[in-house]
């Protein structure tokens, strides 16, 4: 999967899973922070996003520092999903 396509998929997943009504997936920035500032998601959003990612991409989303770092931005999430899918090819 090419990078931009994966990024777009993740953005759509964010809007879908978190029911962000009125947010256009393509308006989400690739590199801006998702939590705190930017979309200002919170801890429960992170849980829901983790569950949605695990289901959609069939990957294990753990609780390690690597996972925590992945939730910084869409780019980080895409890299994380790519790395995790490589370990467990679908």
């Amino acid at each position, binding site marked *: 999967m090419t990078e931009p396509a994966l990024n777009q998929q993740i953005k759509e997943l964010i809007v879908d899973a978190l029911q962000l009504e009125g947010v256009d997936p393509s308006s989400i920035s690739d590199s801006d922070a998702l939590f705190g500032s930017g979309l200002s998601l*919170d*801890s*429960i959003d992170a*849980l829901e996003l*983790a*569950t949605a990612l695990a289901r959609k991409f069939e990957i294990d*989303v*753990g*609780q390690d520092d690597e996972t925590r770092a992945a939730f910084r931005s869409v780019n980080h999430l895409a890299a994380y999903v790519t790395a995790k899918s490589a370990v467990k090819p679908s």
Partner: protein
Amino acid sequence: MTEPPSLSERMYPWKRRLGPLYWLYRGWRGATTGLCFVAFWGGAVILAWLGIPWLWLWPGSRAQKRRRTHAAMRLGFKLFHGIMHALRLYHPRSPVALPRFGDVPADQPCVLVANHPSLCDVTSIASLFPNVVAVARPSLANFPLLRWLVRGMGFVPVGVHMLEECQERLRSGFDLLVFPEGTRSPFGGGLQVFHRGAFEIAARAGVPIILLELTCVPPALGKRLPIWKHPDHQAILTVEPFAAISPSRDSRALCREIERRYHQILGYPDPAARREVT
């Protein structure tokens, strides 16, 4: 009109009365507080390693084993609080036998929400009321010596699966205690920013939310208060339910509203005003 006593006068009134003997008293105070800490963690480790195998290997369903472990731990908490009471350090009490308010039936599982003034709030609430499990911070739930005990008694570790696990606990009849602040309240007044987890869990499980007001007089075992600075008098923690709220699908709005109510009831300025300034 006389000035109201300052925080340090409220916590250490014997300093003036005892004179030079005061430091002897403080030494005793520090030693007994330390003893309680050692007794608590030592007792927990002993129960975890000597009790858990029996409690879990004895035949029964998973739910029965959890009930069993919870009952054993509750006994431990009561013993711990008995010792603290006997040493005149800390004593929890509540005007009610069950954390319910209004017409919420006794057998209806609830999400219990509370402010978090002291370190012993969880042990207090779990020993005052039956069937209370809490959400545990990961450092405790994953601590090798204690993880089986914390999980075995039904406490839910914060993490990816906490939403489902919390709902499972509520379904099996436990009351779920969550501190929306996520940690102890700031020492000396005010509250931390509320998180919406408790309200989201209640919405998903469709259970009422009971609001508990916790007051610790004099303030003790607070955030960033070293344990050797325990007050001169016994600290009394009062746990009192003051409202029952139906869950709302919009957990964000409900969270802000409850945060405002807590500020109101505890006499702190409205958090919305503060947020606009920053």
